[in-house]
């Protein structure tokens, strides 16, 4: 069977299983929490409780800290490492591999299902949070903030894409990819907080440069200062290249590797 029709078939199958799963329910709650924060913020303002942050400023903190630095990489980790691992664990990989379709199309179809699932959960939450918070002090000036929304939607999509490709590769390479993935996220990616050239060795360094939100640092971060903001063209080029390289490597390894099911 041709590559793309096969991938489409795998996509349809994987999407159904991925969207209606416990994992997606948990992710929907976590990704939708900012909407709840925004509603609470609006309610507090209506009750004349003096806020410490402006609505749009809070939105910026949510995008820069909650989404880009924490939740999106975690979502990618838990979905993308399971693309192949779930099939191996459920012993259903054999059924996929015995179909007359190329192995690469299986991985691509599942990866696209992952991207579609995570975008479906993350993008609407970001849009709702933006409109709830950016209009908290009135609609005047909303137009000037809309370009930031578009930028943030792009950064969210790119974050899910590149982290997803990386963790798909990890999932294909390792039997237990979650722990190394967590180490990567919460040890290596912290290098992005260092001054100098170190942020260029991380994925999050490029993603942070693409957003316009710069929440003030606290604690040790005040002494280290904010890292340099990298040019947008460089960030886009590096991130897209990384995503293609990781995904290509994952597809190549998956198409050549023998999977032995545990008895």
């Amino acid at each position, binding site marked *: 069977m041709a590559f793309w029709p096969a991938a489409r078939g795998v996509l349809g199958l994987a*999407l159904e299983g991925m969207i209606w799963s416990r994992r997606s329910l948990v992710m929907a709650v976590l990704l939708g929490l900012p909407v709840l924060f925004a509603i609470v913020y609006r309610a507090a303002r209506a009750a004349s409780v003096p806020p410490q942050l*402006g609505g749009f400023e809070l939105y910026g903190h949510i995008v820069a800290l909650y989404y880009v630095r924490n939740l999106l990489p975690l979502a990618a980790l838990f979905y993308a490492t399971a693309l192949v691992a779930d099939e191996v664990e459920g012993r259903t990989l054999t059924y996929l591999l015995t179909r007359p379709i190329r192995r690469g199309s299986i991985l691509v179809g599942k990866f696209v299902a992952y991207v579609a699932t995570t975008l479906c959960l993350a993008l609407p939450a970001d849009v*709702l949070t933006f409109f709830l918070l950016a209009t908290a002090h009135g609609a005047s000036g909303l137009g000037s903030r809309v370009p930031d929304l578009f930028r943030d939607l792009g950064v969210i999509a790119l974050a899910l894409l590149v982290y997803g490709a990386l963790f798909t590769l990890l999932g294909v390479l390792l039997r237990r990819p979650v722990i190394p993935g967590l180490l990567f996220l919460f040890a290596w990616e912290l290098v992005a907080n260092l001054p100098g050239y170190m942020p260029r060795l991380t994925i999050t360094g490029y993603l942070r440069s693409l957003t316009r939100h710069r929440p*003030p640092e606290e604690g040790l971060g005040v002494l280290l*200062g904010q890292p340099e903001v990298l040019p947008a063209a460089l960030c886009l080029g590096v991130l897209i290249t990384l995503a293609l390289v990781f995904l290509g490597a994952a597809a190549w390894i998956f198409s050549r590797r023998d999977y032995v099911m545990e008895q």
Partner: protein
Amino acid sequence: MPRGRLVVLVSFAVVALGVLAGLLALVLDPARAAVGPLAAEGLALPADTRFLAGVDVKRLTASPLYRKYGWDSSRVESLNELVEATGLRPERDLDQVVVAGRSGIADGVVLVLGRFDVSRLGATLESRGAAPRTVQEGALYVLDANGPRPRAIALPADGVLVAGAVAAVETVIANQSANGPASLAANETLLGLLRRVKPGATFWIVGDRSLLAGLPAELPVPGSGTVRIPPLKSVVATGDLEPVISLAATADAGDAAAARSLSDLLQGLIALAALQAARDPVLGELASGVSVTTEEATVHVHARVPYELLESLRRRGPAAERRE
């Protein structure tokens, strides 16, 4: 249709609606004016303007800062003169105030937009001794005509007032009828800076290097002599007063090395303040509210000061004076 695809469709419909609403807001934003935050009337300001500063008076008078401290125009002599001469009240009559200057407010022009009737205002000015003068558009009144610094107030249209030195005000009135080479419309440098100001800010200021001409070129640093402050090509700053006092400034340093040098200087000052936090929590709070980033040749500074912190700083002022 499979449930999975339905969820995908609904999600992307929400996103598409949000994007559409955003595009509509972009086009229809009431805060959007002729160039950035500057209304069309502002394009008649003089072409040799080196800096522009604007205040959204409606947002200012609705802010906690104004509600607490009121309008203290006595700190700015020229604005004090304007308020006294015209009898205008900011919270009732004014929408926007723009100051255009070359080296300071004293030689600048003030453009006031609001809701006031020019004929009634003209009568008020005449009753306070202003001498009327005939001009192409509207009316012009001269205050202290025989004194050392005669000032003019022009009322070219309902809701528009221009005040300042007589020659500057006459230039603005002449520019009103045709935005020629003597008008701000011909000053591409400032217009470019104005376009970088996000509409909707409570106050904003843009200027070329002359705006910071009064700053020292070097800063003394204990233990290591002095550190050179890189010269800046331009500055764009905006601020809001609600719910906290926030300021965002972007300085064009000319090249990446100068930007990094300035950024390092500012981050060093912030770090020094942060290290004092154990001894002086107010300094620590101030430091944690400031962030400095560089982007090629520009330096971005974001600062936020909660009103409680401002109150602490204010209380320290008189207490420190008493101790001295």
